[in-house]
């Protein structure tokens, strides 16, 4: 059952990066949208992610619950040493989630709209950054349980080149995922080109910040590059991700948006897979100590109960989630956009 629980943890983390990430990405690319286009692209984002907005964020909750029930030592030491970046990530989640809904449900389209939009856009950067930053810290060995002073214990671990580089990389990934997703959601050609160009730019940025990760790992004398490349399975995953890049470019250029979505998801999954595979069973690498999933696991009775709860839960969740995504993809809102507008109180704008 331990491995069932671990599989759920990895999958929940991956899905949060993919779906939650695309969600944050929508806010990120809004910053790079010209003012003239903003209004339209806001409506589009709302339509495209509104119905599944909540579900996308559930993956984070599931990951957290798995951590504190199944691997309490990991949950509690991360909560202690990464208190500050975790709080900042939370701030981003709160600000963004509420701003996203408030701006649509405020029937008065006045000055506050500007505030909502500002909060929405900037907080969309905060969460992915700290998500990446935390992930970077967790695998970097920078957490120091023997630290004596406040900065050493609570600031230096996450304020390093490497964690910051991972944070930037995560921002780019999220923006990229969103752009690729939105190409297929746009309802006219002009918009499609807009999102396509963004996807291309963000892909280039992703590759660049990816390079930055390796550079910073080199500067900080981490063995990351060697370790990933010396493991055959991880190496294969990374090679597959790289080989699929040109195909992805082709797909994006020619508006094969379904293929582009699948490939973008595939690449992100491969990168994460390479990392998890290389680290397994380690999960947190600290200075002088390693927390592995196997050693920190809760007693078997707990894992059994958790595993059964997760399996039983999936039987209910997955079909319902699939049907939700399927029906809102199929019933594209083109014919009756005005209905959505009205529910959102949008009619005041006209």
């Amino acid at each position: 059952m331990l491995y069932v629980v671990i599989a759920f943890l990895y999958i929940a983390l991956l899905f949060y990066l993919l779906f939650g990430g695309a969600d944050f990405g929508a806010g990120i690319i809004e910053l790079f949208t010209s003012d003239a286009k903003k209004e339209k692209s806001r409506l589009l984002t709302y339509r495209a992610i509104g119905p599944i907005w909540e579900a996308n964020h559930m993956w984070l909750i599931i990951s957290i619950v798995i951590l504190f029930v199944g691997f309490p030592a990991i949950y509690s030491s991360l909560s202690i040493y990464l208190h500050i970046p975790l709080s900042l990530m939370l701030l981003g989640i709160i600000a963004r989630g509420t701003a996203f809904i408030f701006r649509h449900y405020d029937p008065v389209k006045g000055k506050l709209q500007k505030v909502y939009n500002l909060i929405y856009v900037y907080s969309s950067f905060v969460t992915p950054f700290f998500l990446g930053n935390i992930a970077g810290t967790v695998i970097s060995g920078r957490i120091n349980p023997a630290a004596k002073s406040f900065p050493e214990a609570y600031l230096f671990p996450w304020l390093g080149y490497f964690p910051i580089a991972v944070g930037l990389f995560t921002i780019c990934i999220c923006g990229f995922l969103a752009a690729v997703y939105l190409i297929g959601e746009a309802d006219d050609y002009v918009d499609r080109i807009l999102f396509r160009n963004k996807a291309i730019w963000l892909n280039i940025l992703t590759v660049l910040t990816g390079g930055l990760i390796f550079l910073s790992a080199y500067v900080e004398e981490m063995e990351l590059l060697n370790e990933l490349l010396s493991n055959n399975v991880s190496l294969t995953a990374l090679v597959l991700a790289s080989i699929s890049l040109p195909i992805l470019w082709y797909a994006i250029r020619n508006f094969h948006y379904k293929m582009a979505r699948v490939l973008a998801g595939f690449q992100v999954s491969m990168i994460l897979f390479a990392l998890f595979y290389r680290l397994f069973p380690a999960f947190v690498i600290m200075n002088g100590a390693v927390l592995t999933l196997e050693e920190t696991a809760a007693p078997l009775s707990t894992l059994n109960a958790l595993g059964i709860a997760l399996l039983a839960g999936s039987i209910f969740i997955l079909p319902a989630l699939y049907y939700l995504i399927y029906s809102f993809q199929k019933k594209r809102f083109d014919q009756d956009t005005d209905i959505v507008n009205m529910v959102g109180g949008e009619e005041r704008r006209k």
Partner: protein
Amino acid sequence: MDDFIAARSQMALSLGFHIIFACIGMIMPFFMAISHYLYLKKRNDHYRKLTVAWSKGVAIFFVTGAVSGTMLSFELGLLWPEFMLHAGPIFGMPFSLEGTAFFLEAIAIGFFLYGWGKFHPWFHWYTGVMVGVTGLASGILVVAANGWMNAPTGFDYVDGEFLNIDPMAAMFNDAWFTQALHMTLAAFVATGFAVAGIHAFLLMRGKNKPLHRSALKIALSLGAVAAILQPISGDISAKDVAQRQPAKLAAMEAHYHTESNAPLIIGGIPDEKNKIVNYAIKIPGGLSFLAHGDFNAEVIGLDQFPEDEQPPVLITHLAFQIMVGCGMILMLTGILWLFGQWRKKPFVEAKWFLTLLAFLTPLGFIAVEAGWVVTEVGRQPWIIYGIMKTREGLTPMPGIVYSFWLYTFIYLSLCGIVSLLLIRQIQDLDKKETPLPTYPR
């Protein structure tokens, strides 16, 4: 303020904030579903308008509830990592099941809010009902976790270690049933009276009368029934607390000295230093009867517990009085309303009655907050009753005071914005006739 007090205050603030949204998230969908049902049956336009208006409110409350809940699942670790290290694997079962309930709720709300005109009307209606059912399920489940902190079971505690963990036994702890029953009713009372109060106010303003009249009827009828059941369930809770946490009962009742034929103390201000209660009404034998069903039974007082294991009396007692006071007022109003409905008395639309309802708007929520203060402060100094002290659970990270102020700022701003939005939505309702989403015929 030291870090320990700051952490406790931050936890109290976050939970106190979350519970408001949780209550509304659990109950509003049912009100909505009733109004939706009436629309689908009668095709009467004001029901449709009401359903849409309510669903906008639900959307606003839902996200606020969801983000504050997300914060909570982190805060448990950020503030109490030592507690979670031990408690996580034991009381995790309800949380893992709750994960499923949340997920289904998130899916159902996606269908409901965005599904107007896109699905078969009854499927759409059904997804609305599911939002309520899954919300209620998650509320009931999370109370099991809290019940475990009050009545820890499902493990053996040997030399400071938690052995032989049985998550199912931990979930079905002694406190769960009474707490979950009382909490579920409380959510109906609080939401029912709050919604009724708002619509009573709007009804007095005279616009959109049929809509507000229906809204009032739906919300208050459910709220009134729950308000009548609430003291009964509260009595069951009190008897249960008398068994399982005598120190909490003693603090609730400001009962300092162990005695038989113990008096029930109503109101009054406990003087913690001299261990007496000033300005109180005392009913001889009342407490013995309420706690054990016998006027002569002995009720354990705080003197039976070491000084450092006594909960704060002043706060717990006042909070308990506030809860019961609110409960009595709401129960009487509920009886009045049901009587008026039954006998078709005109007073249910008289100005005085509507004014009364408008004034009662916040009362249910005040009772909910007070009730949680009784439960949580009354458990002090324990975080896991009898096993682990709250202070032992605290994070070693210094500077929680700053985090407390930051969270206070966040919650205050969210309160401000949500209130503003709600007022604007309500004003919008009374303005010109807006076109509404509909179903294709």
